[in-house]
C-alpha cells in the first residue's frame, strides 16, 4: 500500500465550533463516537434551527395570515420572513415565486399536476435523465398515464456523466413540453451542467424543472442566472427540519397555472357558485402550512449564510478528494460515479460483500452510511448492481471521520475474507 494521502485543504472555518453546533453529533453509537455519513439522505440540525422551532412554539406560535391578535401577527411575520430568506438565498426576483410545500417530492408533484395537466397532451413528451431519483420519475410517469404523453430518458456514460448529444436529440423532437432533471445525482454524486442544459432546452422553447434536493446544501444556486422555470428542494437536506419543501417558479408560469390543492388560505372569495383564488404564493399553499418548520428553514439559511456556501463547498471538496483517494486504496472497492464534476458523496461496492452487510458492520463501528438502491433503481440497473453503499459528507464531517470509514471498511474485508 502506498502512503496515505493527507487532507490537503484544512477547513477554512473552525470545524470544532461547527460540530459544537450539532447536539446529536456528541453521542456514541454502539460505544463508538458517531460518524454520520448519511447526509445525502438527511443532514443533522444545528442548535440554531432546533431553538428557532422550539422558540416559535414556546414564544409566539399561532396560525398565520388571518389572526388579528399579536401572536398571529408575530407568527405571520416570522413565516413570511422565512420566505424572504429563501428568496434571497435563491436570488429569486420575488417572494411570490417561493412556494412552501412538504418536500422536494411534493414540489415536483405540484408542477406535474398543475403545470403538467394544463400543458401536456397526448403525444407530447417529457424529457428526464437516466440518473433521476424516483421522485423525479414517478410524477412524470403518472402525468404520462393521465395524458397519453411519453417519458423520454437521456442516458449517461459509465463515469456517470450525462450524454449531452443524446439529450439534445431528445429535445429536438418538437413534442417536448418540459425537461426535468436532477442538479446533483444522489446515487452517483454527478453535478449536471444545469445552466447549459437549461439553455439547450430553452433553445427549443422548452421549460425546465431542476430537482435541487441534493445540490442545495453544497453549492450556491442562483435561479435567475440558471434561468430555469422551476427549482425544487427540501429543507431537511439543508440543515433545516423535515416536513418543509420549496418550489421556486417563475411568476408568469405560476400565475398561469391552476391551483394544486383547494382549501383555506388559497382563496380570495368563496361562494357556492364560484371561487376566486388568492394571489401568489398563497394560491399554492392551501390549508395551514408547517409554520414552525418553515421558520426553522429560515434559521437554517441564516446559519448557513454565516458560514458561507463557498467555504462549505471548499471543505466538502477537500473531504471528497481525500475520501476518494483513500477508498481507491482498498482492493476490490469500486466507486460508482466518477464524473469530473462531482459533489461530496461516494457510492461504492466492495467485491464479495453486499452493501447491506457493509452497512451493518459499519454501524457497529459507529458509522452511519446508506446501503441500498437510494431510490434510484434505474441507476442500479444501468450498472447491473442490486445496490451500493454510499458515504455522503456535510459541513461538519472531518478527515478523521474519513479515516474511521476506511478503517471500518478494512474490518469488513477482514471479516468476509477470513
Amino acid at each position: 500500500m502506498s502512503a496515505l494521502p493527507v487532507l490537503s485543504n484544512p477547513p477554512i472555518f473552525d470545524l470544532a465550533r461547527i460540530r459544537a453546533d450539532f447536539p446529536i453529533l456528541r453521542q456514541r453509537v454502539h460505544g463508538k463516537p458517531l460518524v454520520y455519513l448519511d447526509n445525502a439522505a438527511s443532514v443533522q440540525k444545528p442548535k440554531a434551527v432546533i431553538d428557532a422551532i422550539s422558540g416559535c412554539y414556546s414564544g409566539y406560535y399561532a396560525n398565520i395570515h388571518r389572526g388579528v391578535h399579536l401572536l398571529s401577527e408575530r407568527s405571520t411575520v416570522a413565516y413570511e420572513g422565512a420566505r424572504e430568506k429563501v428568496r434571497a438565498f435563491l436570488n429569486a426576483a420575488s417572494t411570490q415565486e417561493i412556494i412552501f410545500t412538504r418536500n422536494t417530492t411534493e414540489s415536483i408533484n405540484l408542477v406535474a399536476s398543475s403545470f403538467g395537466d394544463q400543458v401536456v397532451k397526448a403525444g407530447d413528451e417529457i424529457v428526464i435523465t437516466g440518473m433521476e431519483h424516483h421522485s423525479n420519475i414517478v410524477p412524470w410517469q403518472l402525468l404520462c398515464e393521465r395524458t397519453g404523453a411519453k417519458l423520454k430518458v437521456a442516458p449517461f456514460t459509465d463515469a456517470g456523466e450525462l450524454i449531452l448529444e443524446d439529450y439534445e436529440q431528445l429535445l429536438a423532437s418538437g413534442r417536448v413540453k418540459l425537461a426535468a432533471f436532477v442538479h446533483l445525482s444522489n446515487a452517483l454524486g454527478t453535478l449536471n451542467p444545469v445552466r447549459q442544459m437549461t439553455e439547450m432546452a430553452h433553445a427549443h422553447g422548452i421549460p425546465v424543472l431542476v430537482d435541487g434536493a441534493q445540490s442545495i446544501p453544497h453549492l450556491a444556486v442562483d435561479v435567475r442566472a440558471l434561468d430555469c422555470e422551476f427549482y425544487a428542494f427540501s429543507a431537511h437536506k439543508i440543515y433545516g427540519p423535515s416536513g418543509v419543501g420549496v418550489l421556486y417558479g417563475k411568476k408568469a408560469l405560476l400565475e398561469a397555472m391552476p391551483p394544486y390543492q383547494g382549501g383555506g388560505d388559497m382563496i380570495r372569495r368563496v361562494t357556492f357558485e364560484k371561487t376566486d383564488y388568492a394571489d401568489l404564493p398563497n394560491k399554492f399553499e392551501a390549508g395551514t402550512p408547517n409554520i414552525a418548520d418553515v421558520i426553522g428553514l429560515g434559521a437554517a439559511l441564516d446559519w448557513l449564510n454565516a458560514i458561507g456556501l463557498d467555504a462549505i463547498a471548499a471543505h466538502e471538496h477537500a473531504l471528497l478528494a481525500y475520501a476518494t483517494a483513500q477508498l481507491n486504496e482498498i482492493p476490490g472497492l469500486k466507486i460508482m460515479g466518477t464524473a469530473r464534476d462531482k459533489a461530496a458523496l461516494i457510492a461504492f461496492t466492495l467485491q464479495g460483500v453486499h452493501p447491506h452487510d457493509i452497512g451493518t458492520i459499519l454501524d457497529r463501528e459507529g458509522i452511519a452510511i446508506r446501503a441500498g438502491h437510494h431510490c434510484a433503481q434505474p441507476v442500479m440497473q444501468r450498472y447491473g448492481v442490486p445496490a451500493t453503499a454510499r458515504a455522503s459528507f456535510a459541513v461538519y464531517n472531518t478527515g478523521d471521520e474519513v479515516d474511521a470509514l476506511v478503517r471500518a471498511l478494512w474490518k469488513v474485508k477482514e471479516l468476509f475474507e477470513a
Partner: protein
Amino acid sequence: MSDLRDLYQEVILDHNKRPRNFRIIPQPTHHADGVNPLCGDRISVDLDIEDGVIRDIAFQGAGCAISSASASLMTEALKGKPVGEIDHLFEAFHNVVTTDCECPKGLGKLGVLAGVRDYPSRVKCATLAWHAVRAALDARAEPVVTE
C-alpha cells in the same frame, strides 16, 4: 468485532460464499419469487414436491450475506421434510431471529442465524427465503414482498 462475529458466524460466511442448492430445478412442482423492497434483493425458490414430501429444493438470486446464507441453510433444512412441517419450522425459526427464546434443538444449523435478533433491520433478510417458500406452496403468481 466480537459482537459482529455473533451475527456473521463462520457457518453464515461459508454459506454466503458457497451457497448450497444454488441452482434452478428444471421442472419444479412449485416456484415463487421473493422481493425485499427495502434493499431490492430478489430470490427465487424452486421446489419439487412428491407425495407431500420435499424431494428437492433450490434457490437463486442476489442478496446480502444474511439472506443468501439463510436461503442456503433453509434448503438444507427442508430437503426431505414433509410439507406439513414447513409452517412449524418457519415459526420456530422466526421466533429465534426475532425473540430472546432458547433455540429449539429441532432447528439444527438454522440456529446460527439467532444473532439476527440483535439487528432488527436485518430480520427481513433472514426470512425472505422462507416467505418465498410459503408463497410457492400457496401458488402465488405475484412475487412475495417482505413489507
